[in-house]
């Protein structure tokens, strides 16, 4: 589903990500791990098409984000690390806007809005302006808007930040459900326990380079992901 080939991103003379290559297959949850400033968000922003890049290519379902961005976006959903959304709209107006943009029909939108807003316990607040929402409520709304169009590929940047325990649990269940249906999830996190339990495969990025990649059980062995990550960080 996701294929990153020799991806390189530079900011002036500074190379943020250097020659990164990885693959996330259908039905897989891929965890992207790294310390602050390692290049996780830069990579994610290039995958979802908000950041242009110089070297390499990124393919989603075989289509290049450079040459076929609209087709890639049709099957992709993105949840950023900060839920900055239209504060001047109400929650329901925002969800309907996203549905219109993705061309969701009446029956599907009504069913999905009812299902996810109830699941994330936000239905009673959908008539309020987003400006009145807390950080967690905005995060839930962004998650609903990402799930509402049944994406084949879901990109999440720190999705659990700000979520209450019930919402976090529900999100994990939904992530597993999407993968069971053949979808792919690519997400970044600092919570290594979550990554270890949830992911099929992980990639560890350091200083813009992929330093470890593979199935969780192969990387971890008889240790845990946290100790592996700390070892990698110390080996400099």
């Amino acid at each position: 589903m996701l294929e990153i080939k020799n991806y390189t991103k530079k900011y002036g003379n500074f190379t943020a990500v250097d020659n990164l290559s990885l693959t996330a297959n259908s039905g897989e949850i891929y965890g992207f791990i790294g310390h602050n400033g390692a290049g996780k968000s830069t990579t994610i922003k290039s995958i979802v098409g908000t950041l242009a890049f110089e070297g390499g290519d990124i393919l989603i379902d075989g289509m290049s984000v450079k040459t076929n961005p609209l087709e890639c976006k049709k099957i992709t959903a993105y949840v950023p690390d900060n839920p900055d959304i239209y504060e001047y709209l109400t929650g329901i107006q925002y969800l309907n806007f996203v549905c219109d943009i993705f061309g969701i029909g009446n029956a599907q939108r009504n069913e999905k809005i009812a299902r996810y807003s109830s699941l994330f316990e936000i239905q009673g607040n959908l008539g309020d302006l987003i400006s009145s929402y807390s950080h967690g409520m905005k995060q839930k709304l962004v998650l609903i808007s990402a799930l509402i169009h049944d994406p084949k590929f879901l990109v999440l940047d720190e999705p659990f930040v700000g979520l209450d325990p019930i919402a976090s649990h529900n999100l994990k269940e939904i992530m597993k459900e999407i993968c069971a249906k053949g979808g792919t999830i690519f997400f970044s996190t600092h919570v290594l326990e979550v990554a270890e339990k949830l992911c099929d495969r992980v990639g560890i990025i350091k200083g813009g380079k992929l330093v470890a990649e593979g199935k969780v059980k192969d990387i971890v062995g008889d240790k845990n992901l946290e100790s592996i990550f700390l070892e990698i960080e110390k080996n400099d």
Partner: protein
Amino acid sequence: MTKFLSLLKIQLLGFLTTGRSRGKKASNGKKVGTLSIILILGAIMVFYGYTYSKIFAEALLLTGEIIQLLPLMMSMACLINFFFSFYGTTNILYSNKDYELLNAMPISKFAIVMSKLCAMIVSNLLFTLCIIIPSFFVYAKFAGDVSFIFVVEVLLMTLFSPFLVSALAIIVGLLISLLASLFVKKNLINGILLIVFMLCIFAISFISGYSMETGLASGIGKIYFILPIAIKGCTSFGYTMLFVGINFGTFALVSTFVILTYKKFNTILSTKRTVKNFKLKQYNSKGQLKSLFNREMKRLFTSPIYFVNCALGVIMNLVICIVVPIVFSSLRKEGLFIDGSIVVLFAPAIFSFCFLLSPSTACSISMEGQSFWVVRTSPISMNKIFNAKMLVNIVLNVPIAVIGTIVAMISIKVKFTLALLCVIVSLLLCTLSCGLGLLFNILFPKLNWTNENQAVKQGAALLFMVLFAFVFTGLFVLIGIKATISPLWIFVIYSATLLIFNIVTYCLIYLYGEQWLIKKV
């Protein structure tokens, strides 16, 4: 004191910076470019200040009241400063994102409020000086004799003139915001109240405007009520001090009031009202463009500052449409003959000023702010996003432009062909302002803002539009005065030129807009 000065520096940067977001180093080329634009704009403002005061001076010389020139120009600057302060009150003084951050720091309320108020005064003073300095040279040229004490009196009054208007703008802005906060859709109500207030100001200025019988000062004095004191202050130091006292005293009183009530009013204004017992309904799908257009409309109508800024041109156009027929019918009743084909030559100057000064497109990309990722990660082409933004501008401006021009043409009794060409020119200026605004915003987007004022009023795109508005208006006036060929041919040339400008602008947007924007954000 150190904290106050640090805060003042930050506030002044917020007031005076343009397209560059803080924290990023601008290249030398960009620095030179921004500085050049500011200097050109400053030069144009000085030129307009000089020309405008020269016209006033010639009128005042006839009635032997040249002494009134500087107070009159000061009052003009004060009226414009009133609106700047008004924006500042509703966006910078209150309801600013920095409120919680600053209040959590060990800084006194006095330092926080005074830094914001002082920044407001400094920016108002800079504008006043741009108007007064060229006017002073005009005065010296016409009056001949300028004494040292006169210079001191004028200087003192100029320095203190922004204080009273800023204080009054704070009170009016606060009252409107408080009234609007009673409603769920407080931003929309706030915008409507601001528009109503502005219309009242326009109405008062029209009703109490200039007439030969009462003189210039009495008309303007009905709005700027301390103008008589300012006029007397030019010849009497006692009145100068009275002017300074009224300005500073009012400002001191209002500042004390703001400091004492700052926390209370900020709490009231930041309180969110919610809908009780919300129930889901059945929702129907809309097309992408319609949905984007609706979103743009909501963005416009829920941001008072954005709404008022974009409505300014429409309001001015509307006022002119109402005023022109009234003025022409009264002139005809007095038996005066006016050649419509000559008057119509100045119509494009009015249109260009109304349309080019503040099109909604000039800040519509900047207004996306940090939420721009929503549309950028959605399966929609950038050109469709541009179309929605331009459509809002067209929907707001075109009806007024067409109806207004037709009404004006009928009232000044212009031949059909000339009237038709005038409508075409008006339409082409309308679409040009829309396209140019978007093009400049594509080239100079400002997504990292902390309050809407920075996106709407301080973007480089708007700076360029103001520059264009002044240049186009000046050119149209000049052609109107100097024209030797028939008005019909002039309008044919205007139409052809504007059509070419439109084609070039829209080609640039559709062919390169997306790639230029992506490079910038």
